């Protein structure tokens, strides 16, 4: 499979291109006889997948990333996108077709948000109208209201908002490949989790081939379709997150992954993949009698004697004790926040569990991408879902072999 240009499967609208990325024996030496920063790195990222490069600092992961868009020139080896060597391209033109997101974001401070997002389309010489439409679409895609944010300057944004603009900017030219260098490391943990979830969702909509550098194993397990663990310039193991946790290639990998591998496996499963408790939803303005009747008919099962008050479009607001239904005419409106933790369905079981513990709550409403409540989750559901997932990962997943992953990978033995 290595060596032959592979066609990207066509998924979704044509303008969401994704490409196969292939590194062949890529090596970077800074001096003639010095140790190689990256040593004969070979790996293939199938179109539309997220490959996480991880390892201790100095392992060469960022160097490897920057060789893909030629910010660093490889000393040896080939890098191919859809079978075409990046070496054949003019570096600036190549970079316009590779999205690039870095930890410092690097928004141009003298340009507005929309001008920042429009940077690559302008470099590519797009028509004004096409660029304008694209910018609005991208801002919406990354969760920023175009009317509110287009005219703002980077200095007027929070760290998380800046990185959202950074993401939109990287996607603007519809690149088949995206490179992300510790993109979420500079923000606080809560913002980071939200950015991760939004990125996962965004990746479903526009399945780019992504190379994602991080030093955080939890982030790697959560974000990656595959994880490439590097050490001193070498690829130690290239495997799916489940394989990496279940079958570390050697002691180094096991150490790096950490002793709490079982707990980390919680990150392998997303909330949407497990069975949730049906949520006892009552809508604001609904007659209390109707709600009572639904309970009596068994159509709705309160949880610990509470029902969940939601807006007309099912957004969670607050918990209401069942007893109060008898005192009320209709369900009163209440401010959101009482139902914390509200859990995003693309998040991992691990994040969900930690959110429950942090809020000291037995149950939390799970919401979809529109913020609509789709069910409830509590520690028992997480536990049950996890046991099932853990069983799968030890029984059904074959050991990591070159055949399942990638021919020519240096250290993939399981």
């Amino acid at each position, binding site marked *: 499979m290595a060596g032959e240009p592979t066609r990207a499967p066509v998924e979704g609208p044509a303008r969401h291109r994704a490409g196969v990325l292939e590194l062949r024996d890529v090596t970077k030496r800074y001096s003639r006889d010095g140790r190689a920063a990256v040593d004969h790195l070979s790996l293939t990222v199938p179109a539309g997948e997220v490959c996480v490069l991880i390892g201790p600092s100095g392992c060469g992961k960022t160097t490897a990333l920057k060789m893909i*868009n030629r*910010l660093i020139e490889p000393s040896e080896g080939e890098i191919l996108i859809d079978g075409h060597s990046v070496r054949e391209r003019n570096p*600036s*033109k*190549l*970079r*316009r*077709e*590779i999205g*690039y997101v*870095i*930890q*410092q*974001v*690097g*928004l*141009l*401070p*003298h*340009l*507005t948000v929309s001008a920042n997002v429009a*940077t*690559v389309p302008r*470099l590519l010489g797009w028509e004004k109208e096409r660029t304008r439409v694209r910018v609005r679409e991208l801002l919406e895609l990354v969760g920023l209201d175009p009317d509110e944010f287009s005219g703002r*300057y*980077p*200095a*007027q*944004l*929070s*760290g*998380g*908002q800046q990185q959202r603009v*950074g993401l939109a*900017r*990287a996607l603007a030219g519809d690149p088949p490949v995206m*490179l992300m260098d510790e993109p979420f490391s500079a923000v606080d943990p809560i*913002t980071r989790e*939200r950015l991760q979830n939004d990125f996962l969702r965004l990746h479903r909509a526009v399945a780019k081939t992504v190379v994602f550098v991080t030093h955080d194993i939890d982030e790697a397990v959560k974000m990656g379709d595959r994880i490439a663990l590097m050490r001193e310039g070498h690829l130690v193991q290239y495997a799916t997150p489940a394989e990496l946790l279940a079958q570390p290639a050697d002691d180094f990998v096991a150490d790096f992954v950490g002793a709490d591998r079982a707990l980390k496996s919680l990150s392998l499963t997303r909330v949407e993949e497990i069975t949730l408790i049906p949520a006892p939803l009552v809508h604001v303005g609904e007659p209390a009698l109707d709600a009572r009747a639904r309970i009596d008919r068994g159509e709705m099962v309160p949880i610990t004697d509470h029902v969940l008050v939601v807006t007309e479009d099912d957004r969670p607001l607050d918990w209401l004790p069942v007893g109060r239904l008898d005192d009320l005419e209709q369900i009163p409106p209440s401010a959101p926040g009482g139902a914390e933790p509200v859990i995003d369905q693309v998040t991992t079981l691990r994040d969900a569990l930690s959110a429950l513990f942090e809020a000291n709550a037995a149950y939390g409403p799970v919401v979809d991408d529109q913020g609509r409540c789709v069910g409830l989750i509590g520690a028992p559901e997480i536990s049950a879902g996890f046991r099932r997932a853990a069983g799968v990962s030890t029984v059904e997943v074959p050991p990591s072999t070159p055949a399942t992953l990638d021919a020519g990978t240096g250290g993939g033995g399981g």
Partner: protein
Amino acid sequence: MGAVWDAFQANDGWGQTWTHIKLSVTALAMATAVGLVLGVLCAKVGRVAAFLVVTVSNLGRTVPTFAIIALILALTSLGFWPAVLGLFLLGIPPILLNSYTGVREVDPGIVEASRGMGFRPLQVLGRVELPIAMPLVFAGIRTSAVQIVATAALAGLVGAGGLGVIVSSGLSNNQDDVILAGAIPITILAALAELVFGGAERLATPRGLRITRRPVIE
């Protein structure tokens, strides 16, 4: 004050003011062109060249400007262009150093992101680094302008023309009114240079760089 006004007119005040302005503007224009180009080159090329130029600029500042202008006039002649040459040389360091610093200190993350998006090297300079460095460049031009106006007065003192000539004549004849007839317009010109280029500095600052208050709410 009437006596000062009379002295101003009697000593060709308007003519000397015009000469003073011509000297300063010519020298400033040349210093801006050379200082900006050298500063940007220094920021872009090797560290050794940059170190040399920056050190020479800094050392140049320790030589008394009065002595430099007197030497240049003594070694050439008391004309317009020799005076411009002196003012030009003295006007370079602030612009050069500020351009150098301005371009050097652009956040490396911004430069990396720009390269990563596919800006060619000259595009990075023209569309990213220079706009961000502009406020500092203009601050340098302002410093230079005020300094050139002041030093042009010294050139006049030596005999090269401009308002310093009036001060010089007042000093040698011990006439306070004549001294002030030169000194007051020199001060006004310096203040004007400060105001005009201070305003230009504000105009040159892109709006996005003027915003300092950062909301932190997500």
